[in-house]
């Protein structure tokens, strides 16, 4: 499987998907579009990579999927929604991500008072 060409950290895509679905059930294309638009097109994800990630989340019980008619197009789509387990996982992932970013930022922003050696 080709790796996504952008610099997403491992598991980051999962968090983005879960976060997107936390706004409500959505099919794969809607998830993809939301991530693209809300990131201001900065995150260039190879769009197909979303689907194995979705299926894996489904297998892990974090999301469920049903085929449903979508109102705006009238076509059937595989619509994903978050399970309670998924919601819990999202909370933990976001918290962990936040800690990681904070720590990272502190290292980047802290200036030493004297030379390190």
């Amino acid at each position: 499987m080709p790796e996504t060409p952008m610099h997403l950290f491992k598991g980051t895509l999962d968090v983005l998907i879960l976060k997107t679905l936390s706004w409500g059930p959505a099919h794969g294309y809607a998830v993809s579009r939301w991530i693209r638009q809300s990131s201001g097109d900065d995150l260039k994800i190879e769009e197909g990579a979303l689907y194995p990630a979705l299926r894996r989340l489904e297998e892990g019980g974090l999301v469920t999927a049903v085929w449903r008619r979508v109102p705006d197009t009238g076509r059937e789509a595989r619509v994903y929604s978050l399970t309670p387990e998924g919601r819990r996982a999202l909370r933990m992932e976001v918290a962990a991500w936040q800690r990681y970013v904070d720590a990272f930022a502190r290292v980047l922003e802290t200036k030493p008072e004297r030379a390190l050696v």
Partner: protein
Amino acid sequence: MKLPGRGRDDDELPLSPDRQVDDDVRSELDFHIAERAAELEARGMAREQAMTEARALFGDRASIETECRTIEQRRRSTRGRSVRARALRQDITVGLRVLRRAPAFTLAAILTLAVGIGANATVFSIVNQAILQPLPYPDADRIVKVTERHARGWGNLPYPTFLDFERDARSFDAITAYQDGVGTVLVGNTGYRVHGAEVSSEFFRVFAVRPLMGRLPLPGEYAAGGGPVAVVSHAFWRDRLGAPASLTGVRVKLDRDVAVVGVMPAGFDYPAGSELWRPLDGADQSLSRTAHNLEAVGKLRAGISPQSAAGELTAMITRMSAQYAADFDATGGIVVRLQDTLVEGVRKPLFLLFAASAVLLLAACTNLASAQLARGTARGSEFAVRAALGASRLRLVRQLLTESTLLAMLGAGAGLLLARGLLALLRSIAPAGLHLERVHIDGWVAAFAFVVALGTALLFGLYPALRVSEATTSLALREGGRGTGGPSRMRVWHALVASEVALAAMLLVSSAVLVRSFVNVMQVDLGFNATDTRMAQVNLQSATYGDTTPATARFHEAVLARLRGAPGVTAVGFANRLPLEGGNPSGGMLVEGKPMAPNGVNTGNAIYRVVGGDYFAALGIPVLEGRTFLASDDRAAPPVAIVDAEFARLQWPGESAIGKRVKPAGMDGGIEPWHTVVGVVGGVRAGSITSPFIPTYYFDHRQRVSWRSQSVSYAVRGPNPTALDGTVQREIAAVDPQVPVEQGALSRIIRNAMAEQRFTMLLLGIFALLSLILAVVGIHAVVAYAVAQRTREIGVRLALGATPAQVRDMVVRHAMRGVVPGLVLGAVLSFVALRALRAWLSEVTGVDPIASAAAFLLLAVVGVAASVIPARRATRVDPIVAIRAE
């Protein structure tokens, strides 16, 4: 209460039907690309270009599609398993809850099953060990017993014939001859009675057994004269020798000093019970080809059948017959798998018991079917509600089957416990041939019990399950959950009750007839009287007494003299073998004035017993004519003999035996003097309690110059026999403290001789009793249920003026509609069973009307009693309560 009709069952159904995996994945990806292209098109891109762009943005479609398919397939199979597991867990939980809620039913069902499975597991574990499991030797199916057919039947091999087989027969990898018996072994100054065997050189190769420590005898030690070495059993090494770490210098005394050179692994005990093996001394063996002295076993070459081996031996015997016509009586070789010979005697009783236990299990199934059916009906409303809530019929059937399986598993567990108890009980009375001490509940038996349990679960679980699920939807709801007792349902119950009664009748009648036959057998006149007599088996150690007859005779005369004068002793005597003790000493004889048999060496055959002291008085054998041996019949006196009635009748019909002359034939025939018959005594059963009288003649040990057996059995009679043991022990020790003595009641050998019959009888008796209990439980359960169902009707009848007696009669009459046809069917089945038994067991002489009638009467009484109890309960119904019960 949570019903298993819906609820979590929803998880089984996807909210929309599952698409095929391929379609599911492809459609999803197609949807994405189409939507993406539409979006691009909306921004002003040309249609064709938009599609191409959308595909490019998507990435490697083929590999993504494959990956998604793999994940989806994995997910679905896992989900299927977990759904099924959850459904099963739920069935079991509900099943256990249901069983717990009806403890009376559950307990009765488990006990009923335990009886059926326990009886079967007991018999199966015995059959398994005796017949199904191979003997514990490598390639055991190739180990065979070799005997020869001769004019009087079949028998052991003469030594020279064996040597020819050993040298020339091509069918065997190895063949060996052996003699076994009890002898005295001195370890230091202590004498032990030891079962030992003298074996020819290939013996250990036949069984492919290696010594645990030390070595086997070397080829040279099998040469004539016999090497002074012995190999001992693990138990002998441990208990008698004190488990020495090295065998260097370990010696025991048999007829001479021998070195213990090897120890066999624990568990090796062929011939059965052997503790010591030493090389067979060819120099000691009779060279006559009519002396059937040696047992033989061989290991067939791979691919050779016993039949073809027997063919080869028969051809060899035919050639020998021409060559040694003067001293030859064999007509053919017999080769039988060793295992078959070992179970020969117990095969019939075992299969009989197996059949009986199968019938018992069938009765248990019938019981459970009716109980389940009754309960199923009572639970009709519960199932109706579940069905109405959408539980599928399959699901209801599965629930009932799960309950049955749970019951069966619990029953199997209880049954195995029961089997353990039964085996412990049987171990004490089983005939030796069964080797019950080796029988235990192993994996095979447990597997058997659980397979039977599962089969039973299906048998008694399926029919009620189907009936119930059928009835629920249509009837139960309409009838307000009262359940139904429609006429067809009642017919089924009557049929079940009838089967129970019929099966019980068959077991009871067959058992009663068999038990009575056995009792008759056991009451046969044995020709001797064992009450008040103790037996002491005495072994003189060869090391001290050797071949010197005078020393042996002196020992016995000294012991007899001391015991005769001992307090509490009224008569004492001994013989080389007591009747029924096994191994009857039989051989060729010469009767003066009679023509020689075709073999030219004797005039016939008889059992000969060498006796001492007041043998006939001690055993209570009547003297019919003449006298017994006197103190004056010693070595110097004219040789005398005593014959039994059968001997006298066959040799001298219509005239007195007194004054006729006889002597044993054989090697010593030339120098043996004629013995004059001085008395005739009553015949005794010698071989087994069912065998006919065999002609027997007796000699006084002082006059048998060539007799040198060191193993004899004393019989000591006195008014308080158990008190005699100490006396016997003391007096023998006073003569020679190294002589080991084994004591017991004389009746013990009779009990041993009857062991097989007693064993079969006891087990059959237990089975019959169990079947009776099952019949009672079954009839009671069905009648009680019927009464419960008719409470309202009974209440109405009582309200309308029916007397309690009328109600009771009605209920009992109702029950009899099952019991009476059952008795009739049972009579037919019993008749068939008894005919089969008679063709099969010589002990069964006929239908035995008394035993049969008694069994039927018992069953009828029990049937009525089982229905009267619930019937009496019916008369206590309060009409008001009963009618309001709706």
